[in-house]
């Protein structure tokens, strides 16, 4: 018998192998697992459910859902139309203004482009914008500039800055350094390096993010209207206050339709710019 090169070698090592666990100490591993489980059980146990109220609300919920079967677009059409126009206007303007402001902040918040002091200031702006939820910001702006779409516009623009600047900065930090180095080596200035070395690498993502934010801003405009920041949210709030669930259903269906159109449109555009 001649040994062929593909023949299995004689087994002389261990035949058992297990992947090393994430937490090496078995006791610690089990303690953490059981602790988390116990916390979950206790947490669920501490929720007090008012079954009487839930049964009562069940009926109201059903009436709301029944509204979807027969949505009423007609009787409040004037209000709905005005609300939607307001929402779309403030969505678009807030996104454009937000993007314009967030691009320089995003560049400043990228560690590989900005000097440390600039970086820290821009990161702080991003952190403030992101830590304040839209509703809270909307309440603040309503208090400052009064009810209406201006408060909504300011809220959405503010929220856009935190979102877009952070994600843009992260994308800039991930770019291929060699391309930037090549542009610098040719004697390019800082602005030229940005324009030739960085922008082509992040542009598709920036466009994608801006479109995605447009989407989010429209949905948010429906929510912040409830606290008085104008738009279709105010119309929705009024309908709910009047128990006009058929009109509310019509508004919600329109919001869903617009979000879907925006979703398909933005994914198509993103494919084109890749």
């Amino acid at each position, binding site marked *: 018998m001649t040994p062929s090169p593909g023949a299995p070698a004689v087994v002389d090592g261990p035949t058992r192998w297990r992947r090393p666990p994430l937490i090496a100490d078995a006791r610690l591993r089990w303690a953490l697992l059981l602790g988390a489980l116990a916390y979950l059980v206790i947490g669920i146990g501490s929720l007090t459910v008012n079954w009487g109220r839930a049964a009562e609300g069940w009926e109201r919920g059903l009436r709301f859902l029944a509204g979807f079967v027969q949505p009423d677009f007609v009787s409040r059409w004037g209000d709905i139309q005005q609300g939607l126009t307001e929402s779309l206007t403030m969505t678009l303007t807030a996104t454009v203004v937000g993007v314009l402001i967030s691009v320089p902040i995003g560049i400043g918040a990228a560690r590989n482009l900005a000097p440390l002091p600039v970086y820290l200031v821009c990161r702080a702006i991003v952190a403030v914008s992101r830590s304040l939820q839209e509703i809270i910001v909307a309440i603040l702006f309503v208090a400052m500039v009064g009810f209406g779409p201006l408060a909504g516009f300011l809220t959405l623009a503010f929220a856009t800055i935190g979102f877009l600047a952070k994600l843009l900065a992260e994308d800039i930090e991930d770019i291929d350094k060699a391309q930037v180095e090549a542009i610098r080596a040719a*004697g390019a200035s800082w602005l030229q390096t940005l324009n030739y070395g960085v922008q*082509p690498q992040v542009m598709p993502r920036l466009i994608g993010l801006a479109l995605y934010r447009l989407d989010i801003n429209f949905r948010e405009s429906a929510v912040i209207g409830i606290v008085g920041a104008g738009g279709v949210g105010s119309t929705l709030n009024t309908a709910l206050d009047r128990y006009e669930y058929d009109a509310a259903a019509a508004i919600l269906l329109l919001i869903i339709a617009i979000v879907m159109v925006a979703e398909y449109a933005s994914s198509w555009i993103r494919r084109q710019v890749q």
Partner: protein
Amino acid sequence: MRPTVSATTAVKLRVEGLAKRYATGDRALTDVSLALPAGQVLGLIGPSGAGKSTLIRCINRLVEPTAGRVLLGETAVTDLGRSGLRRARRRMGMIFQEYALVERLTVMENVLSGRLGYVPFWRSWLRRFPPADIARAFRLLDRVGLREQADKRADALSGGQRQRVGIARALAQEPEILLVDEPTASLDPKTSRQIMRLLREVCAERGLAAIVNIHDVALARQFMMRIVGLRDGRIVYDGAPEGLSPEVLTAIYGEEDWSAAGEAGAGRDAGPDVPDDDQLAAAL
């Protein structure tokens, strides 16, 4: 023949006592001195981590040297401020490993980006380069055989084509020297030789001096006029390619059987080309 720096040949680039120590404490370069006469194509060889890339990046200060001087002609590159450095970088064309083209820009934009040091921001931003720059870019694309590809995006080209664009971009600067960092590291052996030949040709046509980082000893022997061997950030060999004896190679790379490493000067490789890791990676 041993290339020497005679009084009649102008020295294009002089490196004196260059040292680089990274913040981590690693010494990348220690007391490196060399003079590059006009028209000379110098191959820088050495093991990975010997400081080849650091050395050429210290010359155009993409990496700041810790000590020593770099003189480009009469200009002390190491003493320059920001705008002076920009003007000095225009005079040094750089060609990169993995090409370093801006992938999403067109071939033409990549070649024109070699002119960025010469044009104001608004012109480059609007892509309104002076007519002379555009004419030069087309001539260069003709020279490297890529005129038809001018409007294609760089990421649509093959590896060899991309490196040709890289060469055209460097030449668009109208440089006095070329700094070339592992130009063939991700190319197959045949394309590697074509690129090396093209580099030698354009250097000869324009009287350009060049420093070429190269890790393939056979390629270095075949295409370089002078060899500098780096080991642990120090020059351990400086001389003709013919002088790369097994003893010298051992001094540069460490103990190894060098009998199959290719004979000098014959213009052919002894034995089959053993692909290195990069070539294998490129082939997979």
